[in-house]
């Protein structure tokens, strides 16, 4: 038995898991229209590979991974691309993002899928394949998996953790996946173990999921794997990567760092499941399990094709009941309110909760902080939320960083326990995004400063060079004049030059002599074009002056 290391604080919000575990995972029905965002992962959005009018097949790549931190995106069914355009997506901002809109043809024809013999493959080639198959972390962070499957300089990790804790209330998608598809999860874990040369594999599951624990234990036994199913006490946020790592290994993930720095790599069980299917069948990530729960007729988990509009998914769960007051994407602790039900399910969406006034009442009006310290006792990151709140509220971002704002995992425990009902975590999100924006601005300003300094230096250099050129020329002219007092050729050139200057002067005075006599058709055309352009400009004289200033 593994010795568990208890993390600080945490909370016990009402679980509400039973609502959606009574029914098995069902396949969500095909819908007429899919909206597939090209940004379904952390990093650079995928580059669109299709245009309106193109026909696509299920599993066909419609977006290519771009840059290092990225992953590809695939068509969820066969049909016709009707647009590549900005559409509302499931994001706290409610803003639109670039999506491939596919009208399904109902035939659901797939590309030719080939199982991949990953065991014999060169590691970097395998990782590129995993990127091109669209694999990202399905626990909610959607970080491209191929990056995390690189053992790095160490060449191996000590512990591979499969995260089946699922500590957020209401969500049961990992629970049902473990109950029903334990073997496939473990097959994915085998791939991960091989790629990372992991010394041990531990599957962490909260003790409120006895069926999942039993199913995983049975599958480990049957498959003859030496993996350990570790049962952790139910306490939010045990499913946080840092918290679970600490629980199972006693290792502290460094501030602003990742578990891999202490020899641990953590993947969600859904990611392992997706990885198995990706390699065993060559099937790209085009669906995921999503919990639909709350104020709907029949709460249930669905295997949903990515791009399915959330309103269609709610309908699949029997539709919302009378008195619904909106939707939460994710769980009630870390999720956000959906702004537009037309937004699609993406790789990041693990749960849709339809709210009602009873179970999701509007937050009570906050009162002033009484400095009771409850928030600090609850904070799993061992921060002082009330201090942080004080500075974030005063927009003193320097101080928030001194109090380790960026170690906050935004779990919401502090808001949950605050007797004054202060939504502390909202202030921390606000402060973080302000700081990020300032960093971006600072970088842009520094770049502009460098370019401006270069610009000034360049002008200075050009001026100097010109002066030197003129000086050299003057010297040469003087020498020339001394050498050849009267040169007929030079006199003739000078006369021509003088005439040209005279003509230019006349032109300025508006006499405009037109030297249009012996023109080629090409030149004639150019003159006409120039005249037309000139006609378009309003005050001719003014502009003429400007153009004459050009070098």
């Amino acid at each position, binding site marked *: 038995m593994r010795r568990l290391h208890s993390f600080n604080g945490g909370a016990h919000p009402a679980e509400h898991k039973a609502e959606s575990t009574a029914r098995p995972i069902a396949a969500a029905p095909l819908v007429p229209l899919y909206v597939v965002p090209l940004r379904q992962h952390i990093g650079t959005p995928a580059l669109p590979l299709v245009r309106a009018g193109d026909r696509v097949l299920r599993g066909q790549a419609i977006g290519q991974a771009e840059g290092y931190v990225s992953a590809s995106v695939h068509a969820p069914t066969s049909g016709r691309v009707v647009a590549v355009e900005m559409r509302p997506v499931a994001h706290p901002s409610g803003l639109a993002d670039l999506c491939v809109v596919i009208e399904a043809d109902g035939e659901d024809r797939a590309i030719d899928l080939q199982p991949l013999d990953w065991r014999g493959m060169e590691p970097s080639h395998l990782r590129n394949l995993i990127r091109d198959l669209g694999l990202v972390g399905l626990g909610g962070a959607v970080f491209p998996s191929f990056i995390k499957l690189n053992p790095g300089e160490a060449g191996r990790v000590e512990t591979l953790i499969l995260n089946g804790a699922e500590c957020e209330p209401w969500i049961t998608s990992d629970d049902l996946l473990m109950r029903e598809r334990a073997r496939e999860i473990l097959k994915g874990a085998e791939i991960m173990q091989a790629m990372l040369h992991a010394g041990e594999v531990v599957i962490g599951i909260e003790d409120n999921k006895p069926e999942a624990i039993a199913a995983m234990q049975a599958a480990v036994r049957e498959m003859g794997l030496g993996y350990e199913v570790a049962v952790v006490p139910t306490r939010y946020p045990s499913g946080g990567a840092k918290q679970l790592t600490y629980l199972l290994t006693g290792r502290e993930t460094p501030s602003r760092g990742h578990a891999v720095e202490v020899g641990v790599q953590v993947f969600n069980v859904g990611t392992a499941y997706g990885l198995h299917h990706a390699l065993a069948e060559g099937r790209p990530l085009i669906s995921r399990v999503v919990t639909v729960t709350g104020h709907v007729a029949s709460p249930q988990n669905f295997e949903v094709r990515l791009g399915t509009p959330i309103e269609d998914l709610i309908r699949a769960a029997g539709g919302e009941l009378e008195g619904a007051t909106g939707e939460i994407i994710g769980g009630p602790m870390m999720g956000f309110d959906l702004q537009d039900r037309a937004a699609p399910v993406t790789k990041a969406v693990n749960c849709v909760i339809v709210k009602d006034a009873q179970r999701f009442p509007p937050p009570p009006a906050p009162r002033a902080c009484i400095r009771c310290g409850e928030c600090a006792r609850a904070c799993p990151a061992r921060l002082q939320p009330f201090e942080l709140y004080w500075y974030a509220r005063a927009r003193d971002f320097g101080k928030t960083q001194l109090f380790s704002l960026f170690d906050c995992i935004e779990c919401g425990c502090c808001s949950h326990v605050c007797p004054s009902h202060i939504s502390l975590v909202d202030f921390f999100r*606000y402060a973080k995004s302000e700081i990020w924006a300032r960093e971006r601005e600072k970088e842009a300003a520094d770049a502009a*400063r460098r370019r*401006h*300094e270069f610009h000034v*230096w360049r002008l200075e250099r050009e001026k100097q060079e010109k002066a030197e050129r003129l000086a050299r020329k003057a010297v040469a002219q003087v020498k020339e004049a001394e050498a050849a007092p009267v040169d007929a050729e030079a006199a003739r050139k000078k006369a021509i030059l003088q005439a040209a200057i005279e003509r230019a002067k006349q032109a300025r005075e508006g006499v405009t002599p037109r030297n249009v006599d012996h023109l080629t058709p090409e030149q004639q055309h150019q003159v006409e074009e120039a005249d037309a352009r000139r006609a378009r400009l309003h005050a001719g004289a003014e502009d003429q002056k400007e153009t004459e200033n050009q070098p």
Partner: protein
Amino acid sequence: MAAGGLTLGAVLGWASVRYRVQEDPLVEKIDAILPQTQCGQCGFAGCKPYAEAIAKGEADINRCPPGGEDGIRRLADLLGVEAKSLGEGLEHKPKSVAVIDEDLCIGCTLCIQACPVDAIVGAAKQMHTIVADRCTGCELCLPPCPVECIHMEVIHEDITTWKWRYPVYSIRPVRE
């Protein structure tokens, strides 16, 4: 194009070593707060000259519209003086970039010369383009254009630049 970028980068690299002169640390600190738009709205020929004037006590801290209230507050903090509102006749505008209407551009190069941060590319008699992520939105290229083919476009928020809003609610006083 990529190769051009590399060479330019190399030039910038060694140039930065050559043209940098020793700075007054206070001027540097002030300049670090100024937004580097280089627009001249403060009445100086760029951010650095304005920073120098502030350091000498010859200019007020509220003359930079692109920096806005926030910039003024940070200058006030740095210099240990009271923050104030933006100076008379100055107005903070949303951040924008300049865009050239490429059908109208006659390739006169006047805008290239006006751009303080070398954000415009093009050669004589060829169409010019503004590199959007270099453009500081200073508007200095607008007046010289003889065909008025440059206009400003406000940069809209997207998912990557979106920020969480300051939480708004009224705090109820605790009953005595």
